[in-house]
């Protein structure tokens, strides 16, 4: 009976020099080591060391911000995997999608995950914003973080929109054609902006490549940066807004 085998294995792992060199702290059993666990870790240090118990309640946030971020993580992982089988070229892009569907192991599953998570992220990012608004989360000292949030919302839309073209099917092509035609309605510069966005006068190979680079490199980088700022500012602006009606003891 491997009683506590996992614990013991973990124990001996923690005793190794390698583990210690990486984590540089003992087991997170005291508040000190727990604090170290947060601010000694690049990823966790965007979070405060302590949070209000009330803000952990599901009804306080519905974890909308977290879920949005986690969707971003899911999208990054599945997106990078999909990139291994994707060529941003006409009409190879479409054939790659077919191959993902028909011959690549779990290819269709990954694509479904990516697509679904992308739609869901647009939903949760809006929902998150509305929720924050109704809770008054934008009020000082959170003004700037609200603005960062609005920019992140726009980034999410752009990410989703640029990804929409990549399958190069009828749905993608015409959605992008319709969408970019709206840009040309801009007075004076509209046509120019569309020309720049598409790299031409119509949705073609240049547009596909541009959207691909934006979708896979530029926008994710900016988003990662702003997400970091967003988390950071939650902590620096004094944690989540807690309201009386959140209940608790």
């Amino acid at each position, binding site marked *: 009976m491997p009683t506590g085998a996992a614990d013991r294995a973990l124990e001996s792992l923690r005793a190794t020099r390698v583990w210690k060199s990486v984590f540089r702290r003992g087991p*997170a059993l005291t*508040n000190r080591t*727990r*604090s170290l666990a*947060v601010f000694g870790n690049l990823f*966790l240090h965007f*979070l*405060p*060391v*302590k*949070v*209000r*118990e*009330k803000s*952990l309640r599901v009804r306080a946030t519905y*974890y909308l911000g*977290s*879920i949005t971020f986690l969707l971003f993580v*899911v999208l990054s992982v599945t997106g990078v995997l999909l990139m291994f089988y994707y060529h941003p070229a006409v009409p190879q892009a*479409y054939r790659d999608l077919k191959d993902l569907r028909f011959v690549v192991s779990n290819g*269709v*599953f990954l*694509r*479904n*995950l990516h697509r*679904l*998570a992308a*739609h869901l992220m647009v939903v949760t990012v809006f929902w998150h914003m*509305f929720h924050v608004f109704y809770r008054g989360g*934008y*009020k*000082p*000292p*959170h*003004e700037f973080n*609200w*603005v960062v949030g*609005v920019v992140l919302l*726009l980034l999410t839309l752009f990410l*989703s929109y640029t990804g929409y073209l990549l*399958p190069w*099917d*009828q*749905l993608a*092509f*015409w*959605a992008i054609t*319709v*969408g970019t035609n*709206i840009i*040309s*309605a*801009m007075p004076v510069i*509209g046509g120019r902006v569309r020309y720049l966005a598409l790299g031409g006068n*119509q*949705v073609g190979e240049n547009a596909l490549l541009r959207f691909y680079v934006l979708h896979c490199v530029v926008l994710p980088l900016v988003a990662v940066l702003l997400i970091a700022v967003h988390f950071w500012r939650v902590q620096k602006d004094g*944690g989540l807004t*807690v309201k009386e009606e959140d209940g*608790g*003891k």
Partner: protein
Amino acid sequence: MAENKKIETGFSSDVLKDPKRIVFVTKKTSAKVTGDAGRQVMTFPHLVLREAIAFQILVIAIVLVSLLWDAPLEQLANPLLTPNPAKAPWYFLGLQELLHYFPPFVAGILIPTLVVIALVGIPYFNINIHGGPLWAKRRTSQLRMVLIVLSLLMIFLAIFLAWTVFVPSAAIAFLLLYSYSVPASQTGWRGFLRSRTVSWWVMTWFIAVAITLTLVGTFFRGPGWEWEWPWVSHGG
């Protein structure tokens, strides 16, 4: 707060073991500390664990849906073959619905730009920060104001025959006017409506219109952007 300068300090006997926030409150401090925000817990493991569970539930959910639903893949893009209707991604269908009523510049550029500016501006206007319930004070003049704004909006929408905007706007307007008649002492959802601020009403109106337009654009528009019931398949 208005009385004497009062300094509250908190400390622990073992700061390393149980760190506590030290707050220094003066009149000029922007951060308002109103009452006790409650107990605090360590992020690690309390928040981290909850996030992990949230992540797992999220992945379980999307994996299950992904197994049942296949991402659409239509035919190879063909610039010579326009589907009817050609639809933008769903989150832009609200805009596309607006384009049906208003000139492209208004619906495609002006309105989205104004929405973004408004969203960015929300935390910088006092009415959104300190604004009390709409019907709390100066009720008559507030009502007059509200009636003027509402009639202007409705007339504008009626001129453009933008009835998919008009309907949700009218519904919110109805609730707004109804909440005027609710007595202050009322509790429940009536009381809730009675105590709403101006910014609440505006945001709720925006969300109602946005959701209606997106739903209509996604499900109720067929060839030629004509109204179509989603359960009636076109073409026999």
